[in-house]
Structures are given as structure tokens and as C-alpha cells.
């Protein structure tokens, strides 16, 4: 059982790492500001989500696990709004002078 | 070094720290209507506490100590009033009380009780500044001293730009930034000290300090950071505009007291923290900068067209004298540093300059109020309009010049004696040259103030109680000249145990 959970953790966390990689690559490769924002929000949020998911079995107690989920939820909320704010900002001229 | 223990009367030290804070919070929370009353009550109570502490130090013949929360250093923080601290505390409270009386005229709340900016800011910051100063005089912990220094900066900077004019804002910003640079240097040093010794307590450090690279770096950073805050040449960029731009009551406090705090800290670092004996070259460097301060900034003072700027430059010069102490004390034959003439001379110079400079700035403020300007060349008639003020200025000037019977004479004579005793001829020459320059710039003002008024000059009347506040300070500066010409035992109280 423990082994299975460990395996789950490894798979999920690795998945998370993959999406972080994708996010970073996207951030570096994508051609314009708004596109890059997609990479940031979507890939990284997913990355964090997978990592949180993978860590759940490893949590020492239920409270930490719930806290992990809460963290993920907060990041979702933050990411969803921050990306829009930056997008609005970028579209209005991106702060370029 | 005797281990710390709370001594009888130690609670008064807490009072000295907390009274101003309570007063400040009181004004803040209750609004302006009560500001002046609270401030004056606090000032009086604080003066009483300071005197009581000084008496207790003298009576018991040992330092008054208090361990905060009963925690013994190095874990806890100790407050300690030795003879030197007691003197400084009394000096601080007397000057602040006089400034309080003086400021009644310029920072009173309006009669309708509406809150206005200047009195509110002035009184709260004055009290904040006082708590900071008392902390600097009393705390025995390098980190608490850092916090106290910041407290000092935060109270002092807004006082500079109380006017809100463009130039004073610039001056205040410059002051703040440079003071912060100094603070961060000091803090860096304390960090290294903690890394090396695991304590911030001055007495503990005194026992364990080693002469190694880490300690040298730490001390170098701390002392130079403090020099920046003391505006020692060539780190004086911020002082002239800041001190000249502040309202007179604030300038008096800034010039008389605030720049002294970092110096006292340097003194403590040098003699209480650093591994003894320190290389003579290091002391000579500080004294060399002090000498440069004296000569350079006296000449600058001489060339100013504005009275307040002149006084401000004079502050830089006079602070320079304090730094002459290091080689004089280190080279002295006295058994303990504080038994030497140089030590007493340095402390006396600090105290007498504080009184004299406070009197000068306040006098300059009154003169400017009476005449409507402070151009030195056009001061004619001031002696007729505000004779008491001009007399106070002249008396304070005596002290600055180092002429008898003023306090500045005794202090400079002691420094000179120490210089001759230790064969530091260049220091002797500097002291003398500084005296000549000071006399010249003071005479320039007094002469101008005594000149005939320009035709059609209308002078504003100045309330007598404000003039008397100024005169009191000047008279104290002069009265200090009646101290005997020998090391004061009082200044050694509470320091005896340290080798």
C-alpha cells in the first residue's frame, strides 16, 4: 500500500515537474506577452496542482493535507486573477514607455 | 567586570525610556488639544527622573543598572547609567526642557483646538527623539542601540522638513538616505559581531573580544557607519542643509543632541567593546578626520552668508573636536581611559557644545523672527531689538571659541593639555587653529548684530520667556567653564571594573 502511494506520489510529482518545465519553456519560447501568460497560468498552476496531489498521501496528518489543498486553491484564485490583471495591463500598452 | 544585577533605583532607567514614549503615544491618541500639556508634563517628569538618576549614581558611586524583564545578558538586555550616561541624560533633558519652553511660541496649538500639523508633528517627534536618546545613553546591547539609532533617525528626519519647502524636503531625504546607509553599516557590524561572539552585550563583549580580522571588519563598519550619522568630515554632506533648514527649535535639538548619540556609541565601541589596546594608527585616523572637520568646516562656516548655515557648519567643526579624544586618551599615562584629562575634556566638549549650540540655534531663530531674515551681513540692529538673544548668542559663542570662562574653554584646554602631554603636536595646533577660526566666525556675527540698524528697519517683538530660555542655555554653557581643570571623578563612576 505504502509502495503504491509512493509510486503515486512519484508519478504525480513528476507530472507536476513536467508541467513546470512546460510552463518555463512556454514562458521563454512563446512569442508575445499574452501568449506567455497562458503558459504561466495554465501550466504552472497545473504543475503545482499535481505536486500537491502527489504529496497528499505523504502528509503526516489530515490537517496538513487539507492545508495543501487550501494552498492550491489559493494559488488557483491568485493565478486566475493575476494573469488577467497582467493581461489587461499588457494589452493597454504593457507599461511600455 | 562585575556581573550585571539590577541595582536600587534601576527602575528609574525604565521610566526614563518609557515616559517619553507614553507621552508621544498620548499625544498621538488623544489629539492635539492636549499636545502641549502632555509634552510639558512629560518634559518636566523626565527632567526629574534624569536628575534623580544622576543623584543616585553620585550617591551610590556605582552605575545604576536594570535588567529588562529580569533576563540576564547576553540573553536579555541591560540598561545601565554610569556617570557618563547620567551626565548625558541630564544634559538631554535640560536642553529639551528649554527647547520646550522656547517652542511654546512657535508650536502652540491654535486656540480653537483644531488640529494642525506643525505642533502635532513637533511635539510627538520631540518626545520620540528623547526616548531614542535616552536609549542610546542607557542600553548596553549593540542591537538595541541599533533600534535606538533608527528611532533617532525617524524622529529627526521629519523635523528637518517640518516646513515642507522644497529645499528642506531635499535636505531631509538626503539626511534620511545617508543616515540609513550609516545604519546599515552599523547593523552589518553587529551581525558580524554576533557571528563571532554570540552576544551583543557590551560588557560580555568586552571580556571576550579578540583582535582578529572579523572584529576589525565589524568595528570598522560600525564606527564608520556611526561617523556618517555624526556627520564627521568628509561624511558631512547631509548636515548643513538639514540643520539649517529645520525650524530653530528642531535645529537646536538636532545639532545639540542628535549628532552626539553616534559619537557616544563610537566611544563605547572603542573603549568598551574593542579588544584593547587598539592600534594607535586607528585612533590617529579618527583624530585626523576630526581635525580635518575642524579646519575645513570652520572655514566653510566662515564663508556662509546665512546665519543658520554658518551654525550648521560650525556643528560639523565642533563635532570634530570630539574625535580628537581617541589618540589623546589612548596615549595618556592614566591608568584608565576615563581618568585621563582627554576623556573629561572630550565629554565636556560634548556637553558644552550641546548647550552652546542649542542656544545658538534658538538665538538664530529668534533673530530671524525679529528681523525677518538671517543674512549675516544685514543683522544690524538685532542687538537693539533682541538684546538678550544677541547676548545669549555671544555667550554661546564664547564657548565655541574656547574662551574663558565658558565651558568650551575648559574642554578645549583639557584637550590641549592632553595633546601636549601625549606630544600630539598636530592636534594641539588644530585645536588652537580651530579656536581662532571659531572666534572669527562668531565675531563676524556678533559684530554684525551690534552694527547700526538699517534705516527703516521694523523689528518684530519677541516674547521675553523665549529669550530667557535661550539665555538659560547659554548661561549653562558658560557656567560649565567653572568646572575644575582636572579629570572629573563622576565621569568614571560605574566604569571602574573594566580593565
Amino acid at each position, binding site marked *: 500500500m505504502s509502495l503504491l502511494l509512493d509510486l503515486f506520489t512519484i508519478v504525480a510529482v513528476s507530472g507536476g515537474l513536467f508541467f*513546470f518545465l512546460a510552463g518555463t519553456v512556454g514562458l521563454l519560447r512563446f512569442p508575445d506577452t499574452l501568449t506567455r501568460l497562458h503558459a504561466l497560468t495554465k501550466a504552472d498552476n497545473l504543475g*503545482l496542482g499535481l505536486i500537491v496531489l502527489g*504529496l497528499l498521501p505523504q502528509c503526516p496528518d489530515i490537517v496538513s493535507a487539507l492545508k495543501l489543498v487550501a494552498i492550491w486553491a*489559493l494559488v488557483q484564485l491568485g493565478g486566475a486573477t493575476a494573469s488577467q490583471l497582467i493581461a489587461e495591463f499588457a494589452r493597454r500598452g504593457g507599461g511600455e514607455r | 567586570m562585575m556581573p550585571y544585577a539590577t541595582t536600587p533605583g534601576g527602575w528609574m532607567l525604565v521610566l526614563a525610556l518609557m515616559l517619553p514614549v507614553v507621552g508621544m503615544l498620548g499625544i498621538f491618541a488623544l489629539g492635539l488639544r492636549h499636545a502641549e500639556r502632555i509634552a510639558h508634563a512629560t518634559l518636566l517628569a523626565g527632567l526629574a527622573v534624569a536628575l534623580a538618576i544622576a543623584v543616585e549614581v553620585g550617591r551610590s558611586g556605582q552605575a545604576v543598572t536594570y535588567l529588562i524583564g529580569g533576563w540576564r545578558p547576553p540573553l536579555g538586555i541591560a540598561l545601565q547609567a554610569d556617570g557618563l550616561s547620567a551626565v548625558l541624560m541630564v544634559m538631554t533633558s535640560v536642553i529639551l526642557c528649554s527647547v520646550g519652553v522656547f517652542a511654546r511660541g512657535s508650536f502652540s496649538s491654535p486656540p480653537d483646538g483644531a488640529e494642525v500639523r506643525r505642533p502635532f508633528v513637533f511635539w510627538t517627534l520631540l518626545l520620540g527623539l528623547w526616548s531614542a536618546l535616552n536609549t542610546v545613553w542607557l542600553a548596553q546591547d549593540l542591537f538595541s542601540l541599533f533600534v535606538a539609532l533608527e528611532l533617532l533617525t525617524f524622529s529627526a528626519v521629519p523635523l528637518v522638513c517640518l516646513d515642507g519647502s522644497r529645499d528642506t524636503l531635499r535636505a531631509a531625504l538626503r539626511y534620511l538616505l545617508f543616515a540609513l546607509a550609516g545604519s546599515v553599516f552599523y547593523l552589518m557590524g553587529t551581525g558580524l559581531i554576533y557571528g563571532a561572539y554570540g552576544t551583543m552585550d557590551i560588557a560580555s563583549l568586552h571580556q571576550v573580544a579578540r583582535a582578529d580580522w572579523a572584529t576589525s571588519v565589524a568595528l570598522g563598519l560600525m564606527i564608520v557607519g556611526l561617523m556618517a550619522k555624526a556627520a564627521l568630515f568628509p561624511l558631512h554632506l547631509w548636515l548643513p542643509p538639514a540643520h539649517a533648514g529645520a525650524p530653530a527649535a528642531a535645529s537646536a535639538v538636532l545639532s545639540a543632541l542628535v549628532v552626539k548619540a553616534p559619537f557616544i556609541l563610537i566611544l563605547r565601541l572603542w573603549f568598551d567593546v574593542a579588544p584593547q589596546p587598539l592600534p594607535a594608527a586607528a585612533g590617529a585616523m579618527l583624530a585626523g578626520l576630526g581635525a580635518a572637520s575642524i579646519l575645513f568646516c570652520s572655514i566653510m562656516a566662515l564663508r556662509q552668508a546665512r546665519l543658520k548655515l554658518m551654525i550648521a557648519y560650525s556643528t560639523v567643526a565642533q563635532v570634530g573636536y570630539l574625535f580628537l579624544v581617541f589618540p589623546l586618551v589612548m596615549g595618556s599615562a592614566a591608568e584608565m581611559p576615563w581618568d585621563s584629562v582627554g576623556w573629561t575634556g572630550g565629554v565636556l566638549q560634548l556637553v558644552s557644545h550641546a548647550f552652546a549650540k542649542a542656544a545658538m540655534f534658538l538665538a538664530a531663530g529668534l533673530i530671524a523672527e525679529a528681523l525677518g531674515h538671517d543674512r549675516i551681513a544685514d543683522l544690524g540692529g538685532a542687538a537693539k531689538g533682541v538684546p538678550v538673544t544677541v547676548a545669549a548668542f555671544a555667550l554661546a559663542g564664547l564657548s565655541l571659541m574656547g574662551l574663558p570662562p565658558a565651558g568650551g574653554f575648559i574642554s578645549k584646554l583639557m584637550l590641549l593639555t592632553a595633546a601636549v602631554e601625549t606630544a600630539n603636536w598636530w592636534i594641539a595646533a588644530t585645536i588652537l587653529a580651530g579656536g581662532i577660526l571659531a572666534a572669527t566666525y562668531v565675531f563676524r556675527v556678533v559684530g554684525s548684530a551690534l552694527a547700526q540698524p538699517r534705516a527703516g528697519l521694523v523689528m518684530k517683538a519677541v516674547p521675553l520667556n523665549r529669550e530667557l530660555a535661550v539665555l538659560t542655555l547659554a548661561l549653562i554653557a558658560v557656567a560649565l567653564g567653572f568646572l575644575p581643570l582636572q579629570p572629573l571623578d563622576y565621569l568614571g563612576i560605574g566604569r571602574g571594573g573594566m580593565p
Partner: protein
Amino acid sequence: MAEFLFAAAAIVLVLTGLGLARMLWGPSPADRMMAAQLLGTGGGAIAVLVAIAGDMTAVLDIALTLALLAAFAAVALTLGEPGSKRRGGEE
């Protein structure tokens, strides 16, 4: 398992670090701010990994704080709009 999680944290750090190139290249402030956002998310990930791997649940609070304030900088950035005429107190 802890080893793996620590390694994962290290990898996240490296990946986020690469993202900092955006901070240098820009070209617009929005792009640079994205690097900060990335670090917020990545930092949260690192914190949770370290917290669980090192069994220091207190570290979770760091992640919590980072998550809570993640959007804060982005909000602050929008204060500095181009063409904003607002100066001082007047509206």
C-alpha cells in the same frame, strides 16, 4: 521518498530560475512581472515539497503566505498605468 521530494524541489527551483530569464529579457514590464508570478507559484511548490519531505509542516505556512500574496504584486503593478494622469491627491 524524502530524497525524491527534495530533488523535485531542486528541479522546480532550477525551472523557475530559468524562467527568471524573462525578468532580464522582458521586453515589457508585464513580461518581467510574469517571472515574479512564476516564482510565486514555483516558490509555493518548493515550499510544499520541502515541508512534506522535511516533515516541517511550519514551512507550509510559507507556501500559504506566498499563495495569498501571489497576486499582490500583480495588483500593485497595475497601479503604474501608462497615461495615468493621477498625481498626488487630486482625483
